[in-house]
């Protein structure tokens, strides 16, 4: 087994008392003492995540647009202006999800941020698809290992963060609305995130990372580990790649039909034919949210009994600190009603089927069991 890679902030995390774990080949903080308190800090105040393990890829050249319209299930032509962002899946020819990502349009090309766990596979695939383009010499796909990434999230994130940005970015960043970004030099500030709160993801030169993190700490932004990152994204109803979806599931089976742009009909993206076929034949399973009504805690891979509709399975589950109840994402058979039973250690416990998200902007958005 190889030694896990360390981010620029590794020693800072250790000094702050973080419990470090191996995540996707990286040594990352799981928490800094209390996962629950970190979770609440993001819902109620402001927290920050070192997400420098994520992979930043710049796509440029005159052929970049056509290439991304082939590569991605969502359509980068929706990005009418530089500084706009789009969530998309990258599919194989069978419609299976290779990864989910955010693509930003820039003045002279695009920036794509993909998951750390799928880095090698993604980069190889992106190069392979680029090489198969008729104008492959007009497309460049380049990983930016010189850049780090810090997410600052929570209702107070904006006001704490803005004064700490390079001066040229403060004004423009203050105006950012969701799925927009601004950049200056190698600093890139996007109003995106993985928590369901207001906030930013900041991509910055590795040489500036320690000072920026330290300034955020000084401004009262709390470091948050991967543990709370997972409960926050689950409450926000956001899928985790490799857990809620993978190459054996399509976006239509993963609650992501809205990210597949079938119009215009002449855009031939990879996986299109498979998705059209699946749509025509009928989607037999879907991803839904569950709120546990009985006692216990939902986890991934629990069997879900949906009556005559058949059986499903939870894909991720946890105690939800914001709801004070247990929640899960589950892949259910088509036709499942709004009540199901979940098998927890040999007992069946009732759960209600809901449409995610479970929480947004600090508040529950589903009914909480009494």
């Amino acid at each position, binding site marked *: 087994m190889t030694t896990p890679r360390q981010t620029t902030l590794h020693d800072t995390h250790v000094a702050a008392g973080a419990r470090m774990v191996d995540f996707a080949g990286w040594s990352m903080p*799981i928490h800094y003492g209390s*996962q629950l*308190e970190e*979770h609440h800090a993001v819902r109620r105040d402001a927290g920050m995540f070192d997400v420098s393990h994520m992979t930043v890829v710049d796509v440029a050249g005159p052929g970049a647009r056509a290439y991304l319209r082939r590569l991605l299930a969502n359509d980068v032509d929706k990005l009418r202006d530089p500084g706009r962002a789009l969530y998309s899946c990258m599919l194989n020819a069978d419609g299976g999800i290779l990864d989910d990502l955010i693509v930003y349009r820039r003045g002279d090309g695009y920036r794509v941020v993909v998951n750390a766990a799928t880095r090698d596979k993604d980069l190889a695939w992106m190069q392979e698809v680029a090489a198969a383009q008729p104008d492959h010499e007009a497309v460049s796909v380049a990983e930016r290992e010189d850049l780090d990434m810090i997410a600052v999230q929570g209702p107070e994130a904006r006001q704490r963060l803005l004064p700490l940005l390079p001066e040229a970015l403060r004004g423009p960043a203050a105006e950012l609305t969701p799925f927009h970004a601004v950049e200056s030099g190698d600093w890139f500030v996007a109003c995106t995130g993985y928590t369901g709160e207001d906030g930013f993801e900041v991509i910055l030169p590795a040489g500036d990372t320690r000072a920026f993190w330290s300034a955020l700490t000084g401004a009262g932004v709390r470091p948050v580990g991967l*543990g709370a990152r997972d409960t926050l994204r689950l409450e926000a109803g956001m899928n985790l790649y490799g857990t809620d979806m993978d190459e054996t599931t399509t976006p239509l089976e993963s609650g992501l039909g809205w990210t597949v742009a079938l119009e215009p009909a002449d855009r031939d993206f990879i996986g299109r034919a498979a998705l059209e076929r699946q749509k025509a034949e009928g989607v037999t399973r879907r991803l839904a949210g569950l709120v546990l009504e009985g006692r*216990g*805690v939902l*986890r991934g891979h629990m069997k879900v009994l949906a009556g005559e509709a058949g059986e499903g399975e939870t894909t991720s589950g946890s*105690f939800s*600190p914001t709801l004070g109840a247990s929640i899960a994402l589950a892949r259910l058979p088509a036709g499942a009603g709004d009540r199901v039973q979940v098998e927890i250690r040999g007992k069946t416990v009732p759960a209600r089927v809901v449409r995610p998200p479970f929480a947004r902007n600090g508040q529950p958005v589903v009914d909480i069991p009494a």
Partner: protein
Amino acid sequence: MSNVPSDLKYAKSHEWVRQESDGSLTVGISEHAQELLGDLVFVETPEAGATLEAGSACAVVESVKAASDVYAPVSGEVTAVNEQLGDSPELVNSDPYGEGWLFRVKPADSGELSGLMDAEAYKAHLEAEG
């Protein structure tokens, strides 16, 4: 090193046992165990009257991140459970040797208690586990 009270006995799987004056045994999990688990959000205790067999899974403590079994350190009948944990599982974090106790047993064989570790042996066990 976390707190290991000298008046308790310990199992390798990180449960503690206290002998009460009426001969019953109170069972909980050690400070080290709750630290490893992190913030507890759910505790499932055995039911009063249940018969436990030493070494078998008899309770579950769940933190935000994972579920973990608690093993019966001794055989016997459950005489009481900590009802407070239903609403306040975090007591196991804040006071693992006090208000965070899990259940009480009437031991089937008082000899089993001597098979558990004393505080010194448990400390050595923690160090060996790293």
